[in-house]
Structure formats: C-alpha cells, structure tokens
C-alpha cells in the first residue's frame, strides 16, 4: 500500500453513468490486475474504492459509475485536478489456473475491472473470451477497448437491445477453461452456484478504510470471516458464503 498524489489526465464519459478516469502518479504499488485504489474525494469523509482497470507505466485507468455524491464529484472533476490515492490495495487476480481459454464475465460497472486482466492473460498467450453483460444497450462500454486488445468479445443485454438477450449466467455456456468475473454480488453468486471449474470472483463492498483495519467490509467464507479489502477483493470459486 502506498499513499500518493495523482494528477487527473482525462475524465471521459463512456456512458451516461460511467466515466473513465486516467490518472498519473506513482503506480509502483500496483502489482496485479484486479487490485483496487482508495480515492479521497473532495467533500467526502471516507475514501471511495475503485478497481484498477489498467496500469501502464505511471498511469492508472479507473472506471467510475455515478451512484452517489462521491462518484458524482469524481465524474465532474476537470483534468489537472490532484487526487490523494491509496494504491496497491487488495490481492488481485492470479493467472495461475487460467488454462488455455479463460472466460471473463463482467457485469455493469464491473466490466472495466477486467481490462488489465484481459491484457495480462493475452500477454501470457491465452485465448480470452470476454462476456460483457448490461441491463440495456445504452449502458454498454469497453467493447471496442477489449476487442482492440485481442479478446473475443460477446455482449449480453437483459432487454435484448444489443448483442445477445441474456444474463451473465448465460455466458457460462461459452467454452472455457476457467472463469474470471467482476460485477454485482447477485451476479457473482449466481455464477458461483453454476460454475464448477476454476473461478475467481472480484467482489465489491462498502468499505471504511480499504486496508484491513476497520472490519467494515467483512464477508463470510467457507474458511471463516474475510475482509473484502484485504483478503480479497478476489476470492476463488466456492469460497464465499453468499
């Protein structure tokens, strides 16, 4: 974990709700895809946790969905703004049990978090399929970005407005050697119930500190109480008691 100032380079709307923020600063503590950062938002007391979508040199990419005052403020910050970040938080994904053809399933605001993982898996020579799941067509983002990396991208919408009509669980029908997923808890629980192969699930939670001190984000797992921030946010399949 490292506490450092970052400069906002770009704040780009991807959809009506989701912004992509690119930040420059000391990224040395960011060591694995799927780790997260805690951002001190002007006017808010607690930091806000966001998965790192990608790290490239001294630049971090975050996807922020407007859900309340903190994220509203972040999405309206101009380029050049300085933000205080805690970086290098959480365990991140491991590529160890990916097999040759990993399937990445992203739901809603969890889609962005798969970008860096996708890049790492492709760099390791894997054949990656990314299933991006949204409620409707106007929420779709990151399709072209993931295609540009070289992943086979499939889009699912619940209302059938774009891509295949269906939900994240429908994507499990795609052939795969392993599963990586990030999205709402209900989506992860459904996937975990159906998937029997190697799986890694990235959870989201309301956090206090983000570094393991406050016990604010504890979940129940087969091995006992675990902190999403410190022991996760990535948990193996069949570990979480949903």
């Amino acid at each position, binding site marked *: 974990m490292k*506490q450092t100032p970052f400069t906002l380079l770009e704040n780009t709307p991807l959809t009506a709700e989701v912004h992509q923020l690119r930040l420059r600063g000391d990224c040395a503590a960011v060591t694995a895809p799927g780790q997260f950062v805690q951002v001190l938002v002007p006017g808010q007391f*607690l930091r806000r946790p966001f998965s790192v979508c990608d790290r490239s040199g001294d630049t971090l990419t975050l996807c922020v969905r407007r859900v309340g005052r903190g994220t509203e403020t972040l999405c309206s910050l101009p380029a050049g703004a300085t933000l205080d970040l805690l970086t290098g938080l959480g365990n991140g994904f491991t590529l160890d049990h990916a097999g040759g053809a990993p399937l990445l399933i992203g739901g809603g605001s969890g889609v962005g978090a798969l970008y860096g993982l996708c890049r790492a898996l492709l760099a390791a020579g894997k054949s990656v399929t990314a299933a991006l799941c949204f409620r409707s067509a106007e929420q779709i983002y990151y399709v072209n970005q993931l295609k540009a990396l070289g992943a086979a991208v499939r889009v699912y919408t619940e209302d059938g407005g774009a891509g295949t009509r269906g939900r994240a669980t429908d994507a499990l029908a795609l052939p795969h050697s392993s599963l990586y997923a990030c999205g709402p808890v209900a989506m992860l629980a459904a996937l975990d119930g159906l998937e029997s192969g190697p799986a890694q699930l990235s959870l989201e939670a309301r956090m206090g*500190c983000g570094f*393991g001190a*406050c016990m604010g984000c*504890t979940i129940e797992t087969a091995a006992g109480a675990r902190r999403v921030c410190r022991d996760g946010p990535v948990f193996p399949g069949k570990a979480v008691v949903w």
Partner: protein
Amino acid sequence: MNTNVTLCGIPLDNPVIPASGTFGYGLEFAALYDINCLGSFACKGTTEAPRFGNPGPRIAESAAGMLNSVGLQNPGIDAVLAHELPALAKVFHKPILANVCGFSIDEYVRVAEKFDASPQVGWLEVNVSCPNVHGGGMGFGAAPESAAAVTAAVKRAVKKPVIVKLTPNVTDIAAIARACEDAGADGLSLINTLLAMRIDPAARRPVLANGTGGLSGPAVFPVALRMVWQVYEAVRIPIIGMGGVSCAADVIEMLLAGATAVGVGAANLRDPCAARDIVAALPETMARYGIETLSDIIGGAHHGERRHHRM
C-alpha cells in the same frame, strides 16, 4: 518542547492513542509507518469467543464523518494472545490498551484476566459502550449501576489500570463517570460513537444492514469535547478524550477540556497516516499556542474551582 504525559501511572511519549476499532491490532498500520511514534494504541474490542459481527453493509458516509455497525468482529481473546499480540511484539515496543468487551460481567472478567497477564498490555480499556451489539456493550454502559458493576468486577480480577470506555448515548454521562470512579476505575475513555442512522432513499431502507450504527469523525468532535469537559469536572481520575480528533489542534483542545491522553479514531480510516501526522505536528502546534510542556495544559480551560486530578 515536552509532549510527555502520564496515564494511570504509566508514562507516554505523547498523548496520541489510536482508538479501538480503527487500528485493528496495529499490524496494518505498522506496515505503513513506525507505529512506535505513537503514545500507545487501543486494540480492537475483544470478546471471549470469536465474533463475526453484524451483516453488511456495515459502513455509511455522513457529513464530516461516518457510521459503522461492525458489531465487535474479533478473533476472540485466545487467538489475540496467540497470534495478534506476538506479531505486534515484533513491531511495537510500548504497552497497549487492551479493549475488553463482553456480554456478561463474567465474560468481561475472563477476557480482562487474560489480557492482564500479557506483558504487552499496559491498561485494560473496558468497553461498556459499543452501540452495535445487543445484550452487551452499551447495555452495560447506559446506567450507572451496571457500569459500576462491570468496573468493580474487573477491578477485583486484575492488577493493571482499568479504564472504562463510556457511551455518549446517555442523559448524564457525568453520573456514569462518577459511578465508575466510585467502583474503582483508574481512568475513563470517552466518547464511543453516537447512535445514528442513514436511509437509502432509492431502496427506502436503512443503509446499514443493522439499521443503526455509530457516528464518528469530525462531526462529533464538539460533542466529545463537551462531554470530556463535563466528566473532567465530575471525577478526579484521568480521561482519554476521543471523538472526531483529526489534527494536533484538536488534541490541544481535548487536553484543555480535561483529557490526559487523546484518542484518534475515524481519522485513521480516512488517512492511514493520520495518527503519525498528528504526533509529528504536536511540537509546532504547541509552539503556536505558547505551550512548553503539554501536560501543563490538562484541564487548562476550566476556570474557577478546579478539583485536584490524579495522574
């Protein structure tokens, strides 16, 4: 420039003490900075058996503060003594405040006895003020009689100083403070969090799964300061003042109100280096207010008749 204070007979390099529940057992912070710069710290509230705590969400934002409903999640006293304290011994070389919780007077006594035997423990901080559990915590601290009963039972069982941590969720905190003093308490900690809630207007239900939680952070600082002031005038035993402290000037205010030491709580969660930075800023802040010896200003804002306070 002298920042030393004495808490229940034990010297501290400075009065800054991260508050229970915001500092774990110290290890997360020790990975970030040398926590030996602190006066001491109060460990996570510890019960006899391991506790999972309340369901999530346990955290909510509020103006200038936060709510929590963690519910005393902890690994239990035996695991703390077997794992947490030995790990802490490698990185922290000062006595800690062991925060003792229970759901019966017997449980408080058993946990306190085990902590009392640890050479790493300097003080027992008896938590009769957690607002997030049923049948324990605040249930004992809300009335003078039950607070006194826990205090007396723990005092009988241990050798180390007993500091009782009080809840602000009462009509007359001074009456409870006096009852604890009369029952043998060596010191008092105040305040624990203020019972509070938030509602999610979209979901039309409380944000916290527990419904209510405890409010902390800068929003509560003036309330905490007022209660430290009132308790200082009611008792002679030392007070650890806490509640929303987030800078060295807040520490000075707490001391002037009557605190001997000062807890730093929610600030640690927003900024993991907050307690270290407050310690570092003490000398320049003392200089700004013309303070040479920090312990000289304890209770210094009280004018008129002042009772003689013990250290």
